[in-house]
């Protein structure tokens, strides 16, 4: 496809893509290759990195292997990012699509509904939801999804509003197509590009949000995540800076590469930006 070609010519975006791909591989296969629980206390606490070849990145406050934590954490952090984004899209897209396509009172109703979620500050809302339903991967993921769908809905609504009067949509109407068909097959495929770009940013934001929640002690205690590692290391930044630095770096790298990829996508998908013809 065209987009992939354009994208593959964008060096910066490709760097982002490869970093991300590596993280994805680690998430998928890391735990298989690196067995042993990340919770196991294996060495003396606070072993600095690169001192013991068995525990390359050292050990944490309880003597647990940091590298193991990082590998297992990749899976959760990426999963939380991806799944919450997916849920947000699953809520936001239909809502925005209906509001934008039908307009009128449907739009009014759905947008007021969206507004309610936007009016409570999002981070605060996430905290409350997680606290209420008790921190677990599920509650964290849902909380992040719940606070991040409104922008999706707004974006999709905007796209639908501008596309619904496109002539090919009118042509589909004249063909006697059903509303569902028009929404799903005519408009949605054409509004995907900005949604994809937004989604890439949302994954990044979700990873940050998960780590912020963990920092406040609202992480899932059962699973190892980067956010957990930073949260647990915050009390020992002074003794062992690397304990928060390493997962911090992992988060920053992931977010950064998602960003780069997102921007690359934006340029590839947006003919206005790809600079083909400017007058």
């Amino acid at each position, binding site marked *: 496809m065209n987009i992939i070609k354009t994208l593959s010519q964008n060096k910066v975006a490709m760097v982002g893509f490869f970093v991300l791909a590596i993280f994805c591989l680690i998430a998928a296969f890391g735990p298989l290759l690196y067995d042993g629980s990340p*919770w*196991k*206390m294996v060495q003396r*606490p606070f072993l600095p990195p690169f001192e013991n070849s068995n525990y390359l990145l050292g050990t944490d*406050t*309880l*003597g647990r292997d940091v590298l193991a934590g990082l590998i297992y954490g990749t899976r959760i952090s990426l999963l939380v990012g991806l799944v919450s984004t997916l849920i947000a899209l699953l809520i936001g897209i239909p809502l925005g699509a209906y509001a934008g396509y039908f307009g009128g009172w449907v739009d009014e109703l759905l947008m007021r509904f969206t507004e309610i979620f936007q009016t409570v500050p999002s981070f605060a809302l996430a905290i409350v939801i997680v*606290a209420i339903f*008790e*921190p*677990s991967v599920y509650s964290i993921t849902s909380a992040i999804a719940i606070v991040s769908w409104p922008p999706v809905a707004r974006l999709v609504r905007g796209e639908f509003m501008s596309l619904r009067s496109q002539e090919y949509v009118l042509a589909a109407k004249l063909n006697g197509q059903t509303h569902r068909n028009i929404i799903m097959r005519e408009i949605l495929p054409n509004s995907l590009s900005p949604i994809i770009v937004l989604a890439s940013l949302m994954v990044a934001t979700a990873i940050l949000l998960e780590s912020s929640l963990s920092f406040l*002690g609202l*992480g*899932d*205690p*059962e699973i190892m995540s980067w956010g957990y590692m930073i949260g*647990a290391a*915050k*009390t*020992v*930044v*002074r*003794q062992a800076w690397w304990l928060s630095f390493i997962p911090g770096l992992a988060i920053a790298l992931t977010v950064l590469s998602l960003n780069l990829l997102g921007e690359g996508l934006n340029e590839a998908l947006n003919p206005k930006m790809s600079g083909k013809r400017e007058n």
Partner: protein
Amino acid sequence: AEPKDGGAINVVVQPEPPSLMIGMYSNGTTQQVGGNIFEGLLRYDKELNPHPLLAKSWENSEDGKTWTFHLEKDVLWHDGKPFTSADVVFSVDKMLRKTNARLRTSLEFVESISAPDDYTVVFKLNKPFGPFIRLFEVGTMPMYPKHIYAGTDYKINPANQHPIGTGPFKFVEWKKGSYIHLTKNDHYHVSGLPHINDLYWHVIPDAASRAVAFETGKIDVLPGGSVENFDVPRLTELDNTCVTTDGWEFFSPHSLLWLNNRQGPMADKRFRQAVMYAMDREFAKNVLWNGFGKVANGPVGSKTKFYDKSLPNYEYDPAKAKKLLKEMGYDGTPVRLLPMPYGETWQRWAEVVKQNLEEVGIKTKMVSTDVAGWNQKVADWDYDISFTYLYQYGDPALGVSRNYISSNISKGSSWNNVEGYENAQVDKLFAEAAVAFPDSKRQELYSKVQRQLVEDVPVAWLMELEFPTIYNCKVQNLIDSGIGINDAFGTAWIKQ
């Protein structure tokens, strides 16, 4: 050296207390700050012996049922009104009965309180109650001004926002979220005290920031528990930094795991013993608590009265734990572990325990909650294993028995016998020991009950905690009682 007057001390207060009304709110920090404003009749030294404060002397009748207190004269409330026996009667009989749940239980032994004259108070008990003399600490029985509270709704009295006590420091200002400012009481009844002019209690919500504040010299005193344990060794190595574990003798916080005796594998004594053997409590002590504290080997803390030294101890022995589990036929039912939502150390500790349990084959699932959720779960018995720690208040009758006697099983409250342990013999022994007379008799009974409990393991004891207080060495005489920081800074002074 001779104490010098003047200067200010900056102390961390964490978390910010809901109120300074000691006795109405029994939060730790309410007492830390309020303990400077209010006073009880007595103080206790590090060996838990009573000393005069508002009462200059006291005596007990032969049968142990009548206690007479003679009050200090010339004591003024911060608003200038004199303190008299009427205040004592009002505080104990009216106000505290209503506002202080913990004291209310003990006051059941009190038949009447009377004030024959302005400076004498007489307590008549219905039985000789051994621990009675340990009830007069400021956190348990603070004195309130009758002229302000009589006839009002205590909870919403406006004076609660500007507390009036008899203590060495007066309330000045509370900037919510920032600091509480107390200043010297110039008319304090102990002459020459206090030395310090101003006391500032700073609210700093993040533990790392509290450490930073201490390092940068903005804070002089870090009360026990206000920095994470991991930070303690580093801070103690700083120049001019002193550390002490004194000042917790009265409370003697005893940490333990509530094992829900009612259900699942925990109903089996062998499982509970296996838990004891499975835990590497020395590791937890050394890594998590930096070697402070002492591994607990029974229900009564070693600093509490009637502790029995000769009790057997559960050593770390995973093999034995596995054996016990096998014997009972543990089928791998997962148990839910509820950590204490009080900060990183507790969280880490839960992780260590979880790891320990899993290593002997006990499947453990960590359940995370906040304070409210924790209370709810524990109170509703909706847990399998839960961390907690309990104050002992110097006497098993005050701080220990409450956790084991069956009359104290009551759903909906989180600080009684929530593990659901029922043993008629234990009930009986505790009941007798509380009112036995004299102390030798009590010791005998308490030794018996301790032995029984250690065998039954209704809960898994972890450690006698010690919360090191870290302070700038210029602060002298910081801790001079069994309740440490929770008592007044009345005798503290600053070396120039």
